[in-house]
C-alpha cells in the first residue's frame, strides 16, 4: 500500500512539474520574424465546409479561405503551408504555435478573444436552419421548437450557444463535425441542422433541391482570421492586410468567384 501511494504521488508530482515549467518557459513570440526566417507561413484551416475550403479530388485544398491564405503568403513573400484542423484543433494550434494564422469560418466574439485574437471581419454571416426538402411539415423555426424535434450540429462551433437560444425546446444532438451532421440529416436521425448562411449555400449548391432553408437569420457573426494572442505586431500586420483586402476590391472579386453573389456590406452604418 505504501509503495503504491509513493508511486502515485511521485507520478502526480512529476506531471505537475512538467506543466509548471512549460508555462514558465513560454515567452513573447515575434511571429513575423519566425515566419520570414522559416520562409513558410503555417495556416490552419478546415476541409469540410464548402465553399470556404474543401479537399479537391487531387488531394489539394481549395476554397475562399485557401485563396486568402495564398494571397497573404504571397504578400509576405513566403510559402503557404496548410494544415487541416477541427473546432478544438484550431484554437490549440494557435495557442501552441503550430499555426501562425487560422482561416476557418472562424467567428470572432468577445469570449473567444480572451484566448486568441481576431482581425477585422472579412465576411459577415448569419446562422440559418435548414432541413430536408421533403419534410414539408417543417416550415418555420416554430415547427422546430418542440421537444420531439432534434437539431444537430458539429461540436466546437458558434452553434453551441446560438441554437439552444433560438430553439430552446428542441433536443440538441452534437456530432463530431459537419460531415457527420449532414450524414445524420440525410438518414433522418436529426430533423434539422444549423450553420452560417454561406456554408449552407455551399451544401445546397452541391445537392440541388435536396435541402430547404427555414426563413430567418438567427445571428450576426463576424468571420475573421484568428491569430495567436500576445504578438501585437503580427495582429497589426494581418489586420492591415484584411483592411486592404476589404477596401481594395480584392474581397469583392474573391467573394464573387466562390460565393457567386455580390459581397454585402460588412460594417453596420450607425
Amino acid at each position, binding site marked *: 500500500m505504501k509503495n503504491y501511494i509513493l508511486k502515485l504521488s511521485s507520478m502526480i508530482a512529476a506531471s505537475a512539474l512538467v*506543466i509548471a515549467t512549460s*508555462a514558465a518557459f513560454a515567452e513573447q513570440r515575434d511571429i513575423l520574424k519566425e515566419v520570414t526566417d522559416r520562409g513558410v507561413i503555417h495556416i490552419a484551416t478546415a476541409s469540410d465546409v464548402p465553399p470556404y475550403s474543401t479537399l479537391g479530388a487531387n488531394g489539394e485544398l481549395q476554397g475562399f479561405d485557401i485563396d486568402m491564405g495564398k494571397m497573404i503568403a504571397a504578400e509576405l513573400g513566403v510559402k503557404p503551408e496548410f494544415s487541416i484542423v477541427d473546432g478544438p484543433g484550431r*484554437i490549440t494550434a494557435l*495557442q501552441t504555435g503550430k499555426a501562425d494564422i487560422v482561416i476557418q469560418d472562424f467567428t470572432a466574439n468577445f469570449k473567444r478573444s480572451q484566448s486568441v485574437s481576431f482581425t477585422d471581419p472579412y465576411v459577415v454571416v448569419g446562422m440559418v436552419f435548414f432541413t430536408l426538402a421533403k419534410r414539408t411539415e417543417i416550415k418555420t423555426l416554430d415547427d422546430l421548437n418542440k421537444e420531439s424535434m432534434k437539431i444537430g450540429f458539429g461540436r466546437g462551433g458558434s452553434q453551441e450557444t446560438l441554437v439552444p437560444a433560438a430553439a430552446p425546446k428542441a433536443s440538441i444532438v*452534437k456530432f463530431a463535425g459537419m460531415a*457527420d451532421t449532414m450524414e445524420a440529416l440525410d*438518414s433522418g*436521425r436529426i430533423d434539422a441542422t444549423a450553420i452560417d448562411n454561406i456554408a449552407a449555400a455551399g451544401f445546397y449548391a452541391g445537392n440541388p433541391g435536396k435541402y430547404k432553408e427555414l426563413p430567418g437569420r438567427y445571428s450576426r457573426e463576424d468571420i475573421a482570421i484568428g491569430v495567436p494572442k500576445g504578438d501585437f505586431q503580427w495582429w497589426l500586420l494581418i489586420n492591415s492586410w484584411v483592411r486592404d483586402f476589404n477596401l481594395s476590391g480584392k474581397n469583392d472579386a474573391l467573394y464573387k468567384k466562390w460565393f457567386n453573389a455580390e459581397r454585402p456590406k460588412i460594417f453596420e452604418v450607425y
Partner: protein
Amino acid sequence: MYNFNLFFIFPYLDSLQWAIWNTLQISVTATFLSIIFGVLMALVRLSNYKYLRLCGVCYVEVVRNMPMVVLLYLIFFGLPSFGIVLSGYISGLTALTMNSTAFMTEIFRSGFMAVSKGQFEAARAQGMTNTQLYRFIILPQVFRISYASLGNQIIGVIMGSSIMMIATIEEVTAWMFNTGSINFRYFEVFFVGGLVYFVLCQTVNLVRNALGKIIFKTAAAGGPW
C-alpha cells in the same frame, strides 16, 4: 504565454458529473453483456461442430482486426442506408459490446483450454449433467484463471467508451470537447478529462485487486501491492 489555470473548469463540473455517469453507464452495461456473450462465443469456438467453430473464428477475427471507430461508423452511419436506424446509445452500446466480446472470447477460450481435460472426463464419469459440470467445476476455474485479463479488458472498455461521442453520446470525452469549445481552455479541460479517466481506471484496478483477494483468497490474483 499560456496561463494554466484550473479555475476556468469550475463552472462546468456539474455537466462533468453527468458525463461521468454516462461513461460509467455505457461501460458497465457493455462489460456485463460482453462477459456473457464472451463466454458463449468461447464455447462456440470450442464446440465439436466445424461450421459453428468457423462462425466463432470469423466473428473474433473480423471484429478484433477492425478499429472500434470504424465499427461505430458502420453501425451508426452505415446501417441507416439499409433502413435500420438505431439510436445513438444503442449504436454505441452495440459497437462497444461487439468489440469487447471479441476480446472476452479469447480471454475465456484460453481460460477453458487451461482447465485440464481430465476434469471433463471425471465429471462425466460421475454422471454429472453438462449444466452441473460447467456451473460447479469448469466456470469457476475459468473465472479464476482469466481474472486478471478480465480486469484489463474492463479498463479497455472504459477507454473505448471515449469514442462514443461520435454516436452523440455525451460522455467524458464529449464533455472535454464541449467545454473546451465554450471557454477555449483546452489544456485545462483535457487535463481534467485525463484525470477523470485515470481515476476511473485506477478505481477499477483497486476494486479488482480487493475482490480478487476476497474471492480467491490468494495473492496470485492481486496487483502491484
